[in-house]
């Protein structure tokens, strides 16, 4: 469902140009839980931002379910981000003065879902990410890191996207909480047949993935996975 062909991203910083993404080609099937590994500064976030249409590639194509998003106008890209993509960030990026539930309702509001429906679905999503009812009304900045990331995952799922892009979702969490978050993502990808790309530099977490990629010097290479159990 995701086909990437020879994408390049060039940055001009002063005199030098850097190409953190320099000719990447790969594709993944629907419902795949894939991990992308790489050192800090290797271009993992840059790659995800191109897949999620947060930024435009310098060249190359990103095709999602047959649609070449590299060629879409801005208005269509807004709809693409809203309907087809779910983002999970390392810093959670919740709106701090909104409650957990209000954060989850936000993408549905942008999609024009009625208030009652939004409220109902947000409640159900928060249940799925194992946040108890009493946490739903709590302000986002009053939740622990692990809880905030659960809310962020629920928010990413709000409009039932085809593709979830998670950029180091466990980077700010302790190992135990991180493992729970990865397990949660994995379960969701299997239950909902959602394609999930997780950027991480944690090998243990990457070990849980269906497929494993390594990003280095601007190019992506697939590594074999040792499936456990």
């Amino acid at each position: 469902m995701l086909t990437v062909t020879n994408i390049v991203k060039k940055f001009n910083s002063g005199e030098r140009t850097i190409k953190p993404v320099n000719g990447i080609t790969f594709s993944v099937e629907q419902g795949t839980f894939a991990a992308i590994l790489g050192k800090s500064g290797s271009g993992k976030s840059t790659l995800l931002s191109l897949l999620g249409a947060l930024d435009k590639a310098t060249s190359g194509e990103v095709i999602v379910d047959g649609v070449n998003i590299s060629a879409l106008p801005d208005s269509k890209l807004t709809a693409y981000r809203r309907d087809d993509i779910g983002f999970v960030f390392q810093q959670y990026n919740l709106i701090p003065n909104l409650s957990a539930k209000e954060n989850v309702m936000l993408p549905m509001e942008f999609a024009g879902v009625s208030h009652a429906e939004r409220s109902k679905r947000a409640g159900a999503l928060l249940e799925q990410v194992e946040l108890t009812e009493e946490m739903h009304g709590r302000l986002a900045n009053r939740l622990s890191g692990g809880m905030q990331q659960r809310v962020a995952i629920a928010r990413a799922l709000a409009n039932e996207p085809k593709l979830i892009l998670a950029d180091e979702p466990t980077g700010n969490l302790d190992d135990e909480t991180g493992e729970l978050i990865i397990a949660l993502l994995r379960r969701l990808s299997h239950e909902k047949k959602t394609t999930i790309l997780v950027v991480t530099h944690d090998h243990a977490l990457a070990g849980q993935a269906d497929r494993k990629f390594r990003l280095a010097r601007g190019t992506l290479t697939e590594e074999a996975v040792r499936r456990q159990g």
Partner: protein
Amino acid sequence: MGVVSRSVGNAFRNKVRSGAVIVILAVAIGLALAMLVANQAVASKVDSLKASIGNNLTINPAGARGGFGGGTPLTTAQLTKAAAVPHVAAAQGLLAVRLATNNGTTTGSSGSSNDSGRAGRFGTAGTTSLQSAVAPGVLGARNNSAGASGGTAATPSFSLPIQATGITGSLTASGTAFNITSGSGFSDFAGTSTQALVGSTLATKNGLKVGSTFTVQDRTMKVTGIFDAGTAFDNNAIYLPLAATQTLTDQAGQLSSISVVVDSIDNVSTTQTALTDALGSSTVDVTAGSTNLQSAVTSLGSVQNISLIAFIASLVTAGLIVLLIMIMVVRERRREIGVLKAIGAGNRTIGLQFVIEALVLVALGTVVGSIVAAFSSNPIVSALVASNTTSNAAGRPRQGAANAVGGFGGGGFGGRGVFSGANQLIGTISTSVGWQTLVIGAVGILAIAAIGALVPALLTAKVRPIEVLRGE
């Protein structure tokens, strides 16, 4: 949780800053509203003052005014000349005379004298059967006494003379239209006319109604109308056709004054100069209805301008406050705007959110500002008017006073402060808020809110979704 409630919530994310912004906005908006109220109040005062000035000029023989002074009577030739001066819409010759009551005990010589030629004691130009409606009183006795003025010693009883004014049209001596309460104006302006208009108190005193008769000299006059001029002095008088007055008092071709109507208030002072030049300053004195009123209008006009400029300046200030604070807010929330875009918010949704946030601040600033304006409007008007009129205050002596004009009558000369200045004429200016003021104020505030909010809203469109990754 929609865009509106989110915006309201965002407006109070930083409570201390929002509070400070609202206070500053309140001061600016309050000042703007106070200035607007002041502007409107002064504007309506200017209108009423202008209406009371009228467009009138009076031409008197040089050196004569009312019952004082001397000189040569004006002539009908001068009237023709005056009427030809530019901006003169109408010129009416008047002949004011005093008529002694023939069965009364009026002292003072009777003769064929123009009433402007005498000083001190009453001179009369003829007789009438009418009795004055005003009792002489102390002032009348003093005006009529032969010796030193100021004496209040008992004087022989006498009756005050009646003022008769010869006119050629439908305007009073002061150039305004008659307020005829019964009957009608003149139809016969010939020298043989027997028509007369009688003031209301004089008519009552003498039991006259429309159609009643009385005598002037040896002619029997018929009352065609009864008028109310509003003051005791003016209602104790009669009007006759000019030609009849001239015939009856043997003053053919003579006028005591010419009343001129200027085409516009704005041309009054230039026309005053033009008339003096045309007729010669040694022959005539040309006076405006009230120089002080004119200077009052001028100084109020500058108050009007100041308040308008201050209104606009305060609004612009409020707009700048909104603009700067919202630019700051947008910069501060760049990353959050990136988050909203990353999860699918369109530019319009985000722009709207910031516009509403700005409107919330402006609305609260307006509420507090209205309270500020309610308390500051009156002091601001007083301060503005006071500081702009004192320099013009000591104007020229004002003509005319209650119950007494030109040293003649029961009230004496200059019953009201002769040197009353522009300040007193302006009197109190009441600040009340009319619907126009509210509409103008609302439109102005909405405009500043729109300008102040639109620019930052447009800035949010420039924020790219990739901002969400900043600092990661």
